[in-house]
């Protein structure tokens, strides 16, 4: 099996990628030139929230952003947190359990 991209240079061509990247940068620079630069810096570039000031509470905290995902996997995470008990006895238990399983497989086969 030959690789799709690296060995034959068909789908992956660094020169092409750099050229594409340079092209996108040039386009961005051109758009930037076309923009209206006469706005009030520090005022109009702030997010507009119906005229209210942006409060810290409006920035949801990191643990909240995947709330739905964690809710869906609640059962899985409760088992995982149980496993990750932070107790060194459990760390050793899992190590020994793995060792026993591997020893059993190794000796039988």
């Amino acid at each position: 099996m030959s690789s799709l991209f690296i060995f034959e240079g068909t789908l992956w061509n660094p020169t092409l990628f750099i050229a594409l990247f340079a092209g996108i940068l040039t386009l961005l620079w051109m758009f930037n030139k076309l923009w209206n630069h006469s706005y009030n810096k520090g005022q109009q570039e702030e997010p507009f929230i119906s005229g209210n000031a942006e409060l810290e509470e409006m920035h949801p905290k990191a643990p909240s952003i995947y709330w739905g995902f964690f809710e869906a996997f609640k059962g899985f995470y409760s088992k995982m947190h149980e496993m990750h008990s932070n107790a060194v006895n459990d760390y050793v238990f899992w190590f020994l359990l793995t060792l026993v399983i591997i020893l059993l497989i190794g000796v039988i086969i």
Partner: protein
Amino acid sequence: MNEWVSFLSVNALWLIIVVPLMGAFLAGAASKLNKKWCFPIALFSVLFSFIFVMLLAQQVWAGGIVANTVEHVSQTTLTLPSGSVLPIRIFLLADGMSILMAFIGSLISVLAVIYSFQFIKSQETFYYPLFLVMISGMYGMVLTGDLFNLFVFLEISSISATGLVMTFNRKRSPDSAFKLITVSTIAAMMILVAIGILYSQYNALNMSFLAQAIQWTLLDKIALCLLFTGFAMKAGSVPMHFWVPDAYGDTPASVSAFFVVLSQASLYALFRICFSLFGLSINNVTVGWIIIILGVLSMFIGVMMALVQKDIKRLMAFHAISQTGYMLLGVGVGLAVLGTPAFVEFGSMAMQGSIFHMLNHSIYKGLLFLTAGAVFYAAGTRDLRELRGLGHYMPLTTIFFMVGAFAITGLPPFNGFASKLLIYESVYAFNPVLSAIALLVSILTLASFMKVFYAAFLGPKPKKKPKPIPHTMLFAMLVLSLLCVVFGLFPGIILDALIKPAVEALVSAVSYSGVFTFV
């Protein structure tokens, strides 16, 4: 001048290990006079080691395997009370695989020490000597050709790593250090028992000699299982990974970056045991599938646990576990089809992807840990619930973080893309379900790093203006970022120059077992 270069080239193999070790003692002694001397001593030690690695690499690429002994057998012996005479020697060996590991270690150690200059503002008298001892232990692990020395170097690196975990973050460190040393010691004891089993049967500890002598008896099987589990634990494989977030999380970022290399040195030892020591004598399919299962578990559980973390460094530590899963998966596939036509068809490519991923992982994970350190340095917290808007004040760190995040998620043109694509393609040919899991894990990795990016760098400006990041820290992150891009843009060059010789050295058990001669 040429004579000096020639002398250093010939002795590079042991100088790589000895220089940081001597540097550690020197830094410790010099710190009694003035603690400012620690940094230059550490920097020169790692730089010289890097140069010696390059000199050794030239020899390995030119002539295959380089072997050396620190003392010649006939000159140094130990006479026991029974009258038996035993040779004392430290047998060192470098081939394509070990030189790749030494290269990774030397690169990250130089950058980690440079980063430390303005990052480590206290405990320098402990930090630099311990760091250098740990580096020396890592070099020893990857360059030794002797099983007992492998155990000794593993212990050296584990004990110094524990010291480094212990030294900082007084609140949580003793607990994390205790966990690390407990699990490390138990794993090391298992490895020592395995070495004892092999020694009792074959009266030898030299790995290339043992590779020829192993008969695959019941005791050999037990020894393999003990060695396998011990090194898998040290590599941070699920379900023996619990110490990783504690250890990585409670050390300075520069140490965490090197911990990645240290875990990979254990992974190297695991692969070396499976391929070079036991080779085709083992049941490849069974051992390969055990590695694959550990890999899939590591990938999936690592990333799922990373998603729920609130501490930026613990999150990255779980990602380190997850990425180790990719390496295990590729090498597991390679081992499962070793010696069959499928190895030529896709097994070799799976191994190339995995070994390439080891190199890439050290670079982008090192970068991500350094950016996490920069965030902590600037904002004074690692808690994602307290961080926000750092991108307003730290544009360069934000860019470096993005490069690292894109690389770890496997987006083109960054280095993670190249190695992950090799793994996806080859593993797909072996079993499409495994490849689909690997892809899913990459998507979850992206989600996890979007969360960090959103929490730390986006949002309104922080209440307290963050501290500016010193130039040495920025320099280390810049170099790693550039490497992420360069290795991603030109993966073919890296594969031909570094990865293919490493894979050939690993799978060619014949060439390894044929090295029982001293230079």
